[in-house]
């Protein structure tokens, strides 16, 4: 099982994401933003950071990186894709996921251990969790406030595409406290908090994040 992790100029969490992929039981394959090449991987992670310096809008330039042409085509063909933080912003800008992420309502960069509830355990990235399981992973963002129009929000709720929701207060003003969403097929997931920072007991708030990475291995094995 080979899971690619894309490095854009300004990516910060690509190395942590590759480590999490390995701990989840897959081979981590570095992918480069400037290549039209997914190197034959079975799944892709778009990591956190500040791709292209967050110029214009977060994720707006990364969307047009050569590798994204391949990621978008693969995602539309059913390949599992997980976007974390900046990766979530890139997936929204790429129209692989609905909605957008704007500046936190309190205008401060937040960095904390955050409890989220797994609202959908049927996606390629969350099958290792029990429905409604509460997990604590790291949240660190300045522009993590999820917004979409009312019809889109109702559709996401109705179709079970809300993947994770903040518990114990809304840390960034996200509509309906949404922390993560999926596409209709469930292979593409965007997540504002960082599961890759919660995969080992040595650092971070525990190992609750590991399930995202074991989930994709299980879903690829059963595919």
């Amino acid at each position: 099982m080979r899971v690619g992790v894309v490095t854009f100029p300004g990516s910060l969490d690509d190395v942590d994401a590759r480590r999490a992929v390995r701990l989840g039981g897959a081979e981590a394959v570095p992918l480069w933003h400037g290549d039209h090449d997914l190197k034959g991987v079975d799944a892709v992670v778009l990591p956190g950071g500040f791709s292209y310096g967050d110029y214009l809008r977060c994720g707006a330039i990364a969307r047009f990186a050569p590798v994204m042409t391949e990621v978008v085509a693969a995602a539309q063909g059913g390949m599992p894709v997980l976007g974390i933080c900046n990766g979530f912003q890139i997936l929204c800008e790429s129209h692989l996921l609905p909605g957008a992420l704007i500046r936190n309502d309190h205008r401060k960069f937040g960095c904390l251990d955050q409890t989220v509830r797994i609202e959908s355990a049927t996606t390629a990235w969350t099958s290792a969790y029990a429905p409604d399981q509460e997990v604590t992973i790291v949240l660190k963002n300045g522009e993590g406030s999820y917004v979409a129009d009312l019809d889109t929000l109702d559709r996401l709720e109705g179709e079970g595409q809300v993947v994770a929701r903040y518990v114990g207060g809304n840390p960034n003003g996200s509509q309906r406290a949404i922390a993560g969403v999926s596409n209709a097929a469930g292979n593409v997931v965007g997540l504002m908090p960082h599961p890759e920072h919660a995969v080992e007991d040595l650092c971070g708030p525990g190992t609750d994040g590991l399930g995202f990475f074991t989930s994709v291995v299980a879903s690829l094995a059963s595919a």
Partner: protein
Amino acid sequence: MARVVVDVMPKPEILDPQGKAVQGALPRLGFTGVSEVRQGKRFELELEGEATDERLAQVHEMAATLLSNPVIEDYAVRVLS
């Protein structure tokens, strides 16, 4: 040569934390009486040749695909000269 301006603004229903921060700073500097500030972006595009209908249609396409995100922003195109 034609200079075209694209103004991009957050949609009215979208929270604008930057505008709120600017509004909050004004009274601290002694400026009163401002009930709302919305912050947007202004792009100035220098076109080769005239701003024909066809070129302006392209500018609209640029504005809709890259310069703005239609989920959260509105844009307006105008020709300066």
